[in-house]
C-alpha cells in the first residue's frame, strides 16, 4: 500500500468517479462541484496571466494596438450594467466575424475542393470504385431539395446511407481499443500504485 499522499488523493478520487457508474451519489456530486470550481478558476488564472503578458502589459506601455482589445474586453462586461448592456454586442460581433472567416478559409480548400479532387481517381480497382461510388452516394444523401433528390438520386442516397452506416460502424469498432486503453492506467493506479496488488 502506497504512502504517497498524492497517490492516495488520486486513487480515492478515482474511486469516487467510478462510484457514479453504480449510482449517482452525494460524494460524486461533491467531487463534481469541486471539479467545476477548480477548472473554472484555472481557466480564469490562465486567461488572466495571458492577458497580463500579451494585452494589459503592452497596452499600459503605450502599444495602441493592444488598447483596442482591452477596450473591447471591458465592453464585454457592459452586459452587467442594464443601461449600456447592448454595447457588449460590439466585441462579440467582431469575434463572430473573424471566426466565420476562419471557418470559410478552413472549409473551402481542405474540406471541400481537396476532398473532391482526392476522389477523382481511376476506376481501375474494386477499392477505387467503392471509394468513388461511396463518396458520391453519401453526398447524394445530403441533398435537401425535393426536386434535387428524386428518381435516381433517391436510390443513390439510400446507398449513401448504408455506406455511412458502414463508416460509423468501422470507426466505432476502431475507437473501442483506444477507449479501453484509457482505463488501463487508472486501474494500474488504484490496484497497482495504491494497493500494490498488481505485478
Amino acid at each position: 500500500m502506497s504512502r504517497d499522499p498524492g497517490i492516495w488523493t488520486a486513487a480515492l478520487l478515482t474511486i469516487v468517479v467510478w462510484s457514479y457508474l453504480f449510482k449517482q451519489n452525494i460524494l460524486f456530486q461533491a467531487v463534481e462541484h469541486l471539479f467545476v470550481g477548480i477548472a473554472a478558476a484555472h481557466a480564469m488564472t490562465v486567461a488572466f496571466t495571458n492577458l497580463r503578458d500579451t494585452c494589459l502589459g503592452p497596452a499600459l506601455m503605450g502599444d495602441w494596438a493592444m488598447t483596442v482589445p482591452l477596450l473591447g474586453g471591458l465592453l464585454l462586461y457592459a452586459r452587467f450594467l442594464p443601461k449600456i448592456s447592448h454595447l457588449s454586442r460590439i466585441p462579440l460581433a467582431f469575434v463572430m466575424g473573424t471566426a466565420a472567416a476562419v471557418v470559410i478559409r478552413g472549409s473551402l480548400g481542405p474540406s471541400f475542393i481537396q476532398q473532391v479532387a482526392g476522389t477523382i481517381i481511376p476506376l481501375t480497382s474494386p477499392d477505387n470504385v467503392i471509394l468513388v461510388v461511396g463518396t458520391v452516394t453519401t453526398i447524394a444523401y445530403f441533398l435537401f431539395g425535393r426536386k434535387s433528390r428524386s428518381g435516381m438520386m433517391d436510390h443513390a442516397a439510400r446507398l449513401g446511407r448504408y455506406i455511412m452506416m458502414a463508416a460509423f460502424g468501422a470507426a466505432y469498432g476502431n475507437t473501442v481499443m483506444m477507449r479501453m486503453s484509457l482505463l488501463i492506467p487508472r486501474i494500474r493506479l488504484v490496484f497497482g500504485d495504491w494497493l500494490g496488488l498488481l505485478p
Partner: protein
Amino acid sequence: MQQLTQICVLFSMLFAGIIYTRSYSRTGTMPIRRLPGLDSLDEAIGRATEMGRPIHFTTGTGGLVADTFAAFAVLEYVAKKTAQYGCTLIISNAQPLIHPITENIVRASYYAQGKPQSFKPGNIRYHSDSMQAYVSGVWGIMEREKVAANIMMGYFFAESLLLSEGGVRSGAFQVAGTASTPQLPFFVAACDRTLIGEELFAAGAYLTEDPVRIGALMAQDAAKIAAIAIILTGALASTVGLTM
C-alpha cells in the same frame, strides 16, 4: 490556381444563394424535403412539456465554429417553442465566449414570444472550459433537475459519448447533431435521433423557413450536384487515361 478555384466556388455559391432566395420569395413553395431528425425536436419539446420537466441544450466544447453557428439557429427555435409552451430550458456552456451569445439568443426569443418574465438567466450555465468538468456538471443537471429531453447540437470532441450516455442514464430523450466526423458514430449509437453532418446546417432553413437560409440551402444542393458531376466525370476520364 488553388486560390482562384476557391474564390470561384465561394462566389458561385453566393450568387446561386441570391437567385434561389429570390425565387423562393416569389413562389413561396417550400423546396425542402421532410427531415425526420429535425421533426424529432418537436417531439422532444412536446415530451418535456407533457411531463412538466425541463429540456437541456448544449453546444459542446467546440468554440465559435460553423457547427456552433448552425446550432444557434436550432437554439433559437427551441427557445421560442419552450417560451411558448412554458417549459423550462436549461443550457450548459463550456466556452466562455459562447455563453453570452446563448444568453442573448434565449433572451431575444423569450421577448419575441412575449414572455420576458419567463426568462431566467440562471438557467444558462457555464461549467468551465475543461471538458471533463463540464461533462460532470451536465450530468449533475440531468440527474438533479430530471431533464426530459437532451438536445446536443454543435461541435463535439470526446465528450460526445460521455454526455449521451449520461443522458441515457437519466432517461432523457436525446437528439444530437454535429458535423464532427470522429464523434458521429457515438451519437448515432447512443442517441434517439442524430442529425448527421450537413443536416445540422439545414436545420436553420428547415425550422425557421427563412428565405435567405432556404436559398442558401438550395445553393448548397447545387454545389453538391456539381461535386458529384465533377467526381464522376473526372474519375471516368482518368480511367480511360485522360489527365487534367
